[in-house]
């Protein structure tokens, strides 16, 4: 049956082409020299702001750390998600266990492209899909600040993920779908300066969308429901809708939002809870101007109804 032979041959060739294509498309892509040239010298004080805006300590400090211990970035938190358990690593200045030996270019490739110094993909639990929108000069500032933090020895255990998510190379394909440096919300040229500044903080370093936006089957954020709230990646709860759509924060004024980020109190004097407690603590370290900018942007984003299913009636 020569036709069968031909068919098998065609399938093998197609399969081979597909595998080669997948391999090529999934290759880690580093930053080009034009971006690296924009890194600049880096400024410690400015980097401190980026550090808190980025929430680095919330995942990379030892779980439950308070006070100065939050600056010991030894890792070890366990993020239990449907994909498996992600464990943020040691990013202290320890040259062996942490990132003390990294160059500023290494940090930029990690944060903007999700690529490690050895050329592997990082898992997007490290929110580089948001950090990719950051300015290179902010990465250099952050690098300068991280250099001032202590070196702490010790390695956290690795991730434990289910197939096929345990195949790192596959993340290359994921990046082709979801990794981009463009802003999510298009703003008119005439948009007020605080809204533009807030967009940068929320969509970039703040990575608010990583928890507040629902995800599709492949784990990418649904841009059509940006910040609409989502089923929490961890545990059984939900993350609130922070647009002005139904179920969201339309009734909050800009100063309500800024006050919440500063003090942790909602307009009804309920308090911040869950994973947002750490985030709010970081936001309190920013300037009043930064918090006002975040508030201005949140009031300007397109309204969406809740991005999570309505609660089942109590039984």
């Amino acid at each position, binding site marked *: 049956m020569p036709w069968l032979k031909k068919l098998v041959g065609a399938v093998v060739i197609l399969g081979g082409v597909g595998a080669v294509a997948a391999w090529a498309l999934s290759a880690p892509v580093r930053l080009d020299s034009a971006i690296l040239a924009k890194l600049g010298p880096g400024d410690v004080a400015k980097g401190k702001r980026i550090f808190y805006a980025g929430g680095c300590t919330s995942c990379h400090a030892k779980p439950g750390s308070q006070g100065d211990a939050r600056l010991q970035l030894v890792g070890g938190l366990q993020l239990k998600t449907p994909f498996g358990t992600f464990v943020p690593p040691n990013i202290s200045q320890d040259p062996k266990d942490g990132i003390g030996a990294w160059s500023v270019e290494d940090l930029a490739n990690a944060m903007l492209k999700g690529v490690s110094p050895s050329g592997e993909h990082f898992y997007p639990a490290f929110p580089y899909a948001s950090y990719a929108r950051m300015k290179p000069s902010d990465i250099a500032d952050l690098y300068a600040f991280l250099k001032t933090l202590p070196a702490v020895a010790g390695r956290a255990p690795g991730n434990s993920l289910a197939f096929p998510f345990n195949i790192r190379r596959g993340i290359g394909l994921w990046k082709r779908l979801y990794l981009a440096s463009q802003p999510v919300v298009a703003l008119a040229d005439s948009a007020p300066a605080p809204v533009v500044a807030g967009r940068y903080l929320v969509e970039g370093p703040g990575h608010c969308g990583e928890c507040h936006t629902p995800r599709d089957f492949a784990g990418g954020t649904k841009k059509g429901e940006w910040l609409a709230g989502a089923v929490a990646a961890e545990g*059984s709860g*939900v993350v*609130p809708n922070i647009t002005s759509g139904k179920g969201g924060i339309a009734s909050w004024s800009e100063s309500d939002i800024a006050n919440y980020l500063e003090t*942790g*109190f909602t307009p009804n004097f309920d*308090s*911040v*809870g869950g994973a947002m407690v750490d985030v709010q603590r970081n936001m309190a370290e920013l300037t009043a101007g930064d918090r006002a900018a975040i508030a201005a942007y949140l009031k300007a984003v397109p309204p969406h109804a809740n991005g999570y299913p309505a609660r089942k009636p*109590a039984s």
Partner: protein
Amino acid sequence: MRKLVIAISMLAFAGSAAFADPIIDRQALMKERGKIVGGLAKVAKGEDSFDAAAVLAQLQALQANAEKFDVDALFPKGSDAGDTTAGPKIWEDTAGFKAAEDKYLANVKAATAAAPADVDALKGQINTLGGDCGACHQTYRVKKG
């Protein structure tokens, strides 16, 4: 006579049901707590003027509220089901939950005992108490849809 017995037992049942809904009871306490803190925070932020006697009365009310917070009575086993945002950790780590509540109560008592004389003193106390609110809600509350 029989009717009377039935009526009384029904009343008793209705009464106990009204008192025996710990979810409603604890939510009422939490709402009251938020309302008092809200009033104090307005003073701390300078939106309302500072009156030492009024502030102290509010702190005393907050303390009375905190003292009513009986974990065993308000969070019995099984009261994780229903219209509640109480998280499973309350029952997995009851000792930790009680410790968080005790810390809050101790800080409220300290604030009342200190009787803040000016806005800055009150501000510091509200910050401390707000931190306690968040610390407990971080671990022991789960927001649902």
